[in-house]
């Protein structure tokens, strides 16, 4: 048979399965676009030449590693989902007399079409959106005139390479699936019964215990160093607990409800409880994944925003005043010298259009206390008198003015003066935390897209089955309105559960986040709390919106 035949059949299949292939296409497009953009940032020369550009690029390189792992896992996940749904179709081909190798050819063509198109679309949108992303990045970093977005060949090749490998791997996986299965199995495979769950009570208890332990750990830990080293183990504990609780915990609660006859055999509860039980059993792992991904989004974004918005507070830990100049304390001369220095500073500042405000009380003992001691290092600060002031005005004027001032300062004794200033560190901090925020938001977007897609796939597969149930219940004598309501109630419960879980996790994690951020000198826990709360709220709104939209689109798609 001519190759054109398989090609046509493949095109036809992709079109027919667009309800499923569409989101798959979208997911891999987004993934490759993001990958391409990040790679372009990593390979960008003009960023490398920026001050602290190296820090940003190192951070993004780490991001690439995480992304690659994530992309592999995720694309395999949706691919598996797609293939399982289509097994019946493949069986039909077999029964209609297409040999396995013919089916294989069709599958390979389908994969080539979908993956090829999504890679091209990803690269194109990466190239276009990259400009926008770069613009935002530079704004957030608030530095670097002269940096520009540049598409680099290595980035292009590396993206094609990575996704090429992933696509080849999924194609092989699909081919293997078709190869291993016999038509009979395939036909029956779709409707396999659920196995009875064993050890429900101990496993639920175990899940609860692990979760409680992880939460307590997150709440009681006090030292930032320990918090950082315990963070990942704690995350893993929470993931295990989430899985256990979704898979067996919900089952346990619902089957308890089912045993209570007076409660269970009422119209409102009867259908809801058994429907929920059924849904949760089929979707437990998907829901657990949604919960975990959502938690990751909330935690990542709130950490990054906390660091970004808290960086002033961090800087202030080190710099109680913008500029501090210390003179060796030699009785009255020091006071005179300081007076002179202050006058000089004010005059030069006025010439540059800057305003200075004296920071009055800054005792030597304050400066030697824990946070500041690092700045003046080995100098015995009690030997010094300090002149401390804040600077206001055009930030571009500040650096030249400061250099000029320092060269003109009077000296006392042999050692001259020591000083510290906030400006260069602020720039560095913007580069670091701005880059971090940027990366965080990027990842959050990625996680979100994927969460949305999991939700979508869940909804689609559910609504297929729902239609059948809908009809049967009407036949048995439930009115349309009631049927719709119970089904919607079930769907709502099912999708609210992961959201509630994620919010609970995030709330329990926030003490640990506060402690961890102290390692970054962010002692203002209110900033962290506000960021967690803000992110949580934004996430709730987003999540509910997504559930509504996906539910609506997929029901309307299935009806026509």
């Amino acid at each position, binding site marked *: 048979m001519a190759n054109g035949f398989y090609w046509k059949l493949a095109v036809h299949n992709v079109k027919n399965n667009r309800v499923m292939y569409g989101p798959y296409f979208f997911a891999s497009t987004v993934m490759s676009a993001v990958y391409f953009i990040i790679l372009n940032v990593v390979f960008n020369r003009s960023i490398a030449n920026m001050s602290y550009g190296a820090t940003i690029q190192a951070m993004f390189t780490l991001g690439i590693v995480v992304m690659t792992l994530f992309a592999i896992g995720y694309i395999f996940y949706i691919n598996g989902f797609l293939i399982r749904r289509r097994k019946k179709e493949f069986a039909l081909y077999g029964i209609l007399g297409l040999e396995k190798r013919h089916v294989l050819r069709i599958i390979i063509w389908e994969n080539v079409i979908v993956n090829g198109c999504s890679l091209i679309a990803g690269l194109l949108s990466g190239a276009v959106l990259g400009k926008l992303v770069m613009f935002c990045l530079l704004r957030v970093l608030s530095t670097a005139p002269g940096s520009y977005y540049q598409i680099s060949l290595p980035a292009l090749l590396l993206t094609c390479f990575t996704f090429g490998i992933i696509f080849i791997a999924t194609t092989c996986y699909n081919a293997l699936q078709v190869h291993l299965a016999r038509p009979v199995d395939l036909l029956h495979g779709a409707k396999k019964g659920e196995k009875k769950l064993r050890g429900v009570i101990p496993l639920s208890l175990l899940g609860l215990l692990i979760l409680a332990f992880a939460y307590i750990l997150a709440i009681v830990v006090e030292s930032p160093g320990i918090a950082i080293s315990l963070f990942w183990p704690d995350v893993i504990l929470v993931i295990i607990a989430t899985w256990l609780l979704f898979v067996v915990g919900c089952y346990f609660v619902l089957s308890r409800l089912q045993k209570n006859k*007076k409660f269970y*055999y009422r119209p409102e509860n*009867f259908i809801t409880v*058994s429907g929920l039980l059924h849904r949760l059993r089929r979707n437990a792992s998907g829901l657990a994944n949604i919960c975990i991904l959502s938690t990751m989004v909330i935690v990542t974004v709130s950490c990054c925003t906390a660091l970004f918005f808290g960086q002033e507070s961090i800087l202030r830990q080190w710099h109680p005043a913008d500029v501090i100049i210390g003179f060796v304390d030699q009785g009255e001369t020091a006071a005179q010298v300081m007076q002179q220095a202050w006058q000089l500073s004010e005059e030069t500042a006025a010439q540059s259009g800057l305003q200075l405000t004296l920071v009055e009380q800054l005792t030597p003992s304050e400066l030697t206390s824990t946070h500041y001691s690092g700045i003046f290092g080995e100098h015995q600060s009690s030997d010094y008198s300090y002149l401390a002031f804040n600077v206001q005005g055009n930030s571009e004027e500040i650096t030249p003015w400061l250099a000029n001032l320092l060269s003109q300062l009077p000296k006392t004794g042999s050692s001259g003066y020591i000083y510290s200033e906030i400006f260069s560190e602020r720039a560095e901090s913007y580069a670091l935390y701005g880059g971090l925020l940027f990366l965080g938001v990027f990842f959050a977007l990625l996680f979100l897209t994927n969460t949305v897609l999991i939700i979508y796939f869940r909804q689609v597969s559910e609504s297929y089955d729902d239609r059948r*149930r809908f009809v*049967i*219940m*009407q036949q*048995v*004598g439930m009115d349309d309105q009631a049927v719709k309501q119970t089904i919607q109630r079930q769907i709502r419960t099912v999708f609210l559960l992961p959201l509630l879980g994620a919010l609970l996790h995030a709330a329990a994690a926030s003490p640990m986040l506060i402690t961890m951020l102290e390692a970054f000198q962010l002692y203002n826990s209110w900033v962290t709390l506000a960021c967690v709360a803000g992110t949580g709220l934004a996430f709730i709104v987003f999540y509910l919106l997504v559930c509504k939209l996906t539910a609506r689109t997929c029901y309307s798609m299935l009806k026509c």
Partner: protein
Amino acid sequence: MVLLQAVDLVKTYSGRLGGRRYSALDKVNFQVEQGEFTAVMGASGSGKTTLLNLLASLDKPSQGDVILNGQSFRSIDERRLAAFRRQNLGFVFQDYNLLDTFTVRDNILLPLVLNRAAVEDMEKRLIPLASRLGLESLLDKFPYEISGGEQQRTAVARAMITNPKLLLADEPTGALDSRSSANLLDIFSEFNAQGQTIVMVTHSAFAASFSSRVLFIQDGRLLTEIYRGDEPRRAFFDRLVNASSSLMDGGANVG
């Protein structure tokens, strides 16, 4: 006493393309007496399912009316229809239509739960019915764990548990082998012997031979009816086969 009356039932479907109208039922009139076991027999596409759906109030006729126990379906408000259906009618379908989220027990109890029956009452009705249908040992299994015949018996139990005035069955043996078919039809006859009114739609003369009266339908029109009288089932079956081959050019299935 007349339990069910179909009055000038017409059902037309407008075609998807161009709106050419196709009439699936054309002025169907008949009556079913209380306690009768009526079969409607016809070839594929003759309008049997369409007719049954109208009798079941699952669909609305284009013209005409159905009257059950003196109550016209047209006079029942849309919102009350579901409750009416679940209190007066029981259904059995070709493809069982059990809910896979429920165990056999809960599938059977579903209509009672919707009627807000008391839990003790449910048990009282369930146990004898289940034992009569041979379902006692299967009550806690799920539909996909039991055979087709068992699923169909579950569907019968679900239809019968509310003691409906009328039991409607659409091709109930369509998916069963001959032994489970005979088993199911015996159950129907038994119910009928105890006074249950049944209307069953089928294309098979074998299934129809269990009834007490057979209506023949072709192209949406009732052709004739044949009463069984005191005849044994085998003889009635032979008569039905002869009648259907002469009436419908061999359109009906002997099996």
